[in-house]
């Protein structure tokens, strides 16, 4: 029994705490501590969920949001990764990009939402663009940092065997930067999802963010909660997936020398 606990500690405690929260939520509503109008309840949300599932609404919203998310993230990874790699090769390129990265970092991207709408119209392209911009920073930053911070000892050893610049890049810097890249990817996934939801709140005709906004404005808490819960669950799923990816790619981390 203890063995089971030890091995799956995280999973068990995770599930338990969620169960407790759900139970507390339901009880709070049942006992009148909070009004269902404001917070809904697990029971009501479940009913609504089944209803929306049957009507196809869940599927539509999910697929629209996921489609935009995939595009936003995909573009961010490709463009951010390429720029990061290029910037690690060329100091000039890095310096050219730097002020814009800084600006992007400290300004609220959403403020430029009206401009995107003006260019790309209300709907998917704008949402994908916002998601792309949200997600690109960690990808670029981590790619650049991972490659630049390659272990200097390894670089020196490779050079002693006559490695040329592209050897150093392909065989030492790039493989060595995988953990940082994955960490960046993890952040990017979260940001891309946030970007999609936030942009959908403002202007969309379908999608999870749209549903949240739509029902929210009509004060239909139960319906709104379905989409909200879906967003949270998506976030958890993605995070866990990336956690797994992180451990899979990290298995070779060199710790202090083990005893003989």
């Amino acid at each position, binding site marked *: 029994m203890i063995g089971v606990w030890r091995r799956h500690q995280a999973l068990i*405690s995770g599930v338990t705490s969620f169960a407790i929260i759900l139970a507390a939520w339901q009880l709070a509503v049942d006992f009148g501590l909070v009004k269902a109008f404001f917070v809904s309840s697990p029971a009501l949300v479940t009913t609504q969920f089944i209803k929306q599932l049957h009507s196809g609404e869940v599927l539509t919203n999910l697929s629209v949001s996921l489609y935009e998310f995939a595009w936003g993230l995909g573009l961010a990874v490709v463009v951010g990764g390429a720029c990061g790699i290029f910037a690690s090769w060329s100091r000039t390129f*890095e310096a050219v990009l730097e002020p*814009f990265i800084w600006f992007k970092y400290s*300004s609220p991207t959403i403020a430029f939402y009206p401009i995107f709408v003006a260019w790309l119209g209300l709907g998917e392209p704008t949402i994908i663009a916002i998601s792309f911009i949200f997600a690109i920073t960690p990808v670029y930053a981590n790619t650049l940092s991972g490659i630049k911070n390659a272990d200097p000892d390894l670089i020196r050893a490779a050079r002693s065997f006559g490695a040329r610049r592209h050897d150093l890049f392909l065989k030492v810097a790039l493989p060595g930067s995988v953990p940082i890249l994955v960490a960046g990817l993890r952040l990017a996934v979260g940001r891309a999802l*946030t970007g999609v939801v*936030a942009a959908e709140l*403002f202007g969309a005709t379908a999608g999870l963010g749209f549903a949240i906004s739509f029902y929210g404005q009509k004060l239909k808490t139960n319906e709104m909660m379905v989409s909200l819960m879906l967003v949270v669950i998506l976030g958890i799923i993605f*995070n866990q997936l990336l956690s797994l990816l992180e451990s899979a790619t990290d298995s070779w981390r060199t710790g202090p020398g083990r005893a003989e």
Partner: protein
Amino acid sequence: MAVTTQIEPRQVPSLGALINRHYSLVVSTISVLVFLALWQISADQGWINARYTSTPSAVARAALVIFRTDNFFYHAWVSLSEFGIGFALALVVSVPLGLVLGTSRSIRLFVEPPLMAMYTAPRLALLPILIVWLGIGMASKVAIVFLGAIFPIIVNTIAGVRDADPRLIQAARAFGATRLDIFTKILIPGCLPAILMGIRLGIGRGLLSVIVGEMFVSEAGIGYQIMTYGQGMQIDKLLVYAFVVSIFGYSLTLAVKLMEDHIRSWRPAS
């Protein structure tokens, strides 16, 4: 004994040498200037539609107008207070919470899963429900700022506590330190850099939250102005407000970063 250093006569660095040393800075500045120039020129030449993008000169002119006539300071004050109150509340709650969670393994085991779920979930999705609960006034924005800022601070504080050097704690114990002593004299100073980093991240999120919140639904504030001007296609004024937020956010995070670096420099390389 042989001379260890041979000092060559100091020369006044040439322009080329100066550029070399500050190469990155020079290139970055040129890059910004080129961008601004291209922006202005392509709008003037009609290559791009200035209605959608405005121009640097128009933005500059609009800035003057705004600062003089537009109730700018009123809106700025609204946003600043929403941000300030929300952030202060976040600090008060999250630092102690983070410290407690960092030290108590059993509590952390149960609190961490929902915490991480909230950290990674897009909190902006809660905007509509916050509006339902708290109305369209300042309260809902304070709430979203609070939610935006607490999680980075808590998560980073926990990480900071867990990184505490066990050797220092051991040494303190050897001198008879009580649990409270260890807490106040070693743990808290020790995880200060991590807390500051959490604060820095929290600032970014908090600012974003207040602007998004105001853009979504509000009666006043910088985000409200941005949305109004956006819908009215007055891009030049929109950009002025956007830049104001950027500069504010940049200065604030820079200030915190400097504090962070200063404190980090005390610590030996671990």
